[in-house]
């Protein structure tokens, strides 16, 4: 047996008081897919950045094929055959695939860039490793999955033998993610060794051969994937046993919100094309679908930042099709936005300011145009204790909160007023297990209290676990609803592929 291709020995890294990596050691074997599992903030990304030379470790060493890698130099890592695919792509949208791949790896001041050779090499790589992409295409025109392939090709083009992928499925829809893992398996057969970072248990179980679990910067477990289970991994990852809450069946009441034939046209991506649905008191309606099929447009219309060009939206009998966000808020509609950083909170404002931002015009939090600071702060303090928002005081800058705690703040400011309808758009995207369980529990509690909830989710497990009824969204059209308990994965898969339309078209 040959030695490990990559070896980490007692890596330590601190940022001020924060210990990001605490005495981390592990090895990567030839042809292995190693999953690095851990919650947000467990130190996974820091560790990979140390391997790749973006950060310098305070102590410890990295060895590639037994040779010491000089720290703090990405070029040394590349030369040693280590390639990294970042979570956020580093591609120039206005250049071609070819340009993006060769940029940085060819000498700057040479007139005759060897484009033909490069083109041939890329085509060869993409054939060998099963990464179909057209080198002449403009990156801006590619789908997210294709862009990721370009990123991988970029690493392979530089003759990487060890590939590190940081949260590779964060931006991918399920089928694309499955395709990616199939590709990765094929690549190990060609002699590559792969580390992928993840906090999703099911993909770790499905795709890896070995798992290293990080918690609080330390390695807390190392297992061969075959000898462990998702439940065991969840427990060591979180440090306690976390169970997602389950939905208790109960009868739903009168319809609260109803949409008929909503249409929205969008410049980019799918809009809505005659969407019809109804959500009742104490009911969660799940909208599932492959990303980019009109979920964004639906979310925008229901949160009031865009208006339908045709069709009608009624809330408790009142037409709310053309209401502004403020109009919706005043009527008791809670909205959890898809992108919590861009729409949910303003990072540079204090937690208390974000807590009351939607209700500045209410006489509870302002009078005569002046903000009632005492009331606002105590409202925020109440949210912090009731919704267990960690690491926050009312005066904390919101940017300092973790994603999960930010989401709890957004949930809290919506739920505190007992809304009758809640739009929950991808409420757990990017959150870790503990935070997901907390968000699910809050949504189910709101449901028990009689709220109507529309859940837009690309996570099928989540949609099935929470929803009473499910509709699939395909190219801006909604399927007929199915009762969640009666739908199996195959049926939902067919619905998400748009198969229902053929059934009804006849």
């Amino acid at each position, binding site marked *: 047996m040959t030695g490990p291709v990559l070896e980490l020995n007692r890596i330590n890294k601190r940022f001020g008081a924060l210990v990001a990596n605490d005495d981390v050691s592990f090895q990567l074997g030839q042809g292995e897919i190693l999953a690095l599992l851990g919650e947000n903030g467990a130190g996974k990304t820091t560790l990979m950045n140390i391997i790749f030379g*973006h950060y310098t470790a305070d102590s410890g060493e990295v060895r590639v094929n037994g040779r010491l890698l000089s720290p703090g130099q990405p070029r040394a890592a590349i030369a040693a055959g280590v390639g990294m695919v970042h979570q956020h792509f580093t591609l120039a949208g206005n250049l071609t695939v070819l340009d993006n791949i060769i940029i940085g790896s060819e000498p700057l001041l040479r007139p005759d860039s060897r484009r033909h050779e490069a083109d041939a090499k890329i085509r060869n790589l993409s054939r060998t490793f099963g990464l179909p992409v057209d080198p002449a295409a403009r990156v801006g025109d590619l789908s997210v999955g294709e862009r990721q392939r370009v990123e991988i090709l970029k690493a392979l083009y530089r003759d990487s033998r060890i590939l590190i992928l940081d949260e590779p499925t964060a931006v991918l829809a399920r089928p694309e993610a499955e395709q990616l893992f199939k590709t990765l398996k094929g690549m190990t057969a060609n002699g590559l060794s792969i580390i992928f970072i993840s906090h999703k248990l099911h993909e770790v179980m499905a795709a890896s051969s070995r798992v290293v679990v990080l918690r609080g910067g330390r390695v807390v477990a190392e297992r061969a994937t075959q000898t462990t289970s998702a439940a065991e991994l969840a427990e060591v990852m979180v440090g306690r046993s976390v169970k997602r809450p389950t939905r208790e069946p109960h009868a739903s009441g009168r319809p609260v919100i109803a949409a008929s034939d909503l249409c929205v046209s969008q410049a980019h991506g799918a809009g809505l094309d005659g969407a019809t649905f109804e959500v009742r008191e104490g009911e969660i309606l799940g909208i599932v679908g492959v990303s980019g099929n009109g979920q964004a447009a639906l979310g925008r219309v229901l949160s009031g*930042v865009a208006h339908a060009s045709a069709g009608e939206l009624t809330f408790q009998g009142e037409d709310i099709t053309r209401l502004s966000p*403020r109009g919706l808020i005043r009527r008791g509609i809670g909205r959890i936005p898809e992108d919590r950083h861009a729409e949910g909170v*303003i990072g540079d*404002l204090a937690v208390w*300011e974000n807590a009351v931002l939607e209700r500045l*015009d209410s006489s509870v939090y*302002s009078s005569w145009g002046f*903000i009632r600071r005492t009331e606002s702060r105590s409202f925020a303090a109440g949210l912090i204790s009731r919704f267990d928002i960690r690491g926050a005081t009312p005066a904390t800058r919101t940017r300092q909160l973790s994603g999960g705690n930010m989401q709890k703040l957004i949930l809290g400011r919506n739920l505190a007023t007992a809304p009758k309808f809640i739009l929950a758009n991808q409420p757990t995207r990017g959150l870790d297990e503990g935070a997901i369980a907390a968000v699910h529990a809050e949504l189910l509690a709101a449901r028990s209290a009689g709220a109507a909830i529309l859940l837009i989710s690309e996570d099928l497990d989540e949609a099935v676990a929470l929803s009473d009824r499910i509709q699939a969204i395909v190219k801006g059209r909604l399927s007929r609803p199915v009762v969640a308990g009666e739908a199996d994965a195959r049926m939902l898969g067919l619905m998400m592929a748009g198969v229902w339309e053929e059934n009804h078209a006849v």
Partner: protein
Amino acid sequence: MQFERRADVSVTLLVVAPLAAITVALLLCAGLIAAAGVSPITAYGEMLRGALGSRLSITETLTRAIPLIFTGLAAAVAFRARVWNIGGEGQFYIGALVTAGLGHSLFASLPAPIAISLLLAVSAICGALLLMAPVALRLRFGVDEVVVTLLMNFIVLLFVGLMVEGPLKDPMAFGWPQSVPVDPSLRLPRLVPRTRLHIGLLVALVAALTVWIVQARTVFGTEMRAAGLSPRAAAFAGIPLPRILMSVAFLSGGLAALAGSVEVLGPTGYVTTTMSPGFGYAGIVVAMLAALHPAGVVAAAIFIATVFVGADAMSRATGVPSFIADVIMSVSLLAMLTALLFTTYRIKR
């Protein structure tokens, strides 16, 4: 070398940053003064003496700071909401022109306090409209307000030239292109007898305090900051962006016009096309040095005024051209922009 965002920005850092920027600027300009053959210590000494060395020079410096406080507040208010008002100079001249035009005859029959208040209000509204137009263009058509407000400065200045050569020309001015003076009863009272310092200083300080209270304590202030920090999140939270930005334009344009109005009612009494040594543009520097804080605006305005008044004295005493004041101001701005980078980011190793 890479930059990473600081998790939190301490108040100390926000106070130290402008002081450090000014120190760096003065050190760099010391090199230029030395190159002109004068000891920087002597030169800066003359500058300080000229600006703050006597009762008269202090009042002169404060008089100079008054329009800078107004234009600085105008820029600070606008920038806070990411309305890039580069048109402070034009709004200044509109304020001055309206005040001179109406103050000559129209309001002279009213009691002075009422007439002065009316003049200030009407001038402010005219300046406000001058900025609301480009902001409306941005909201409606996506026109870049930086270009529009900047270019409008020249149009306004040429218009003022047209007026002081034509309808508003003072027949008693021996052919000089200046407007007829405002009625003497409407001139602002002196704060200190036998100096040029007038009660416009108090008006400016009240304006700064008002802006501070509005920004920190009111719903409008919070909405305005939210709109500047993240327009998308603000819109999602139900803040009506167009209305907020138009209100900001009203406030900012009005403040800049007040600078011109107060300058006419105070020291000059009439309008010329050379009455502003770039008060509008200097307001941008003042706002940046103040890190957009109203209290900082007052301090930064006094600093810039000190440099300009002191530079004249230094120039007379040492022969270093008074243009050094412009250089100090510009280098301070550049140093401050660099310092602001370090208050938000730190170097990552």
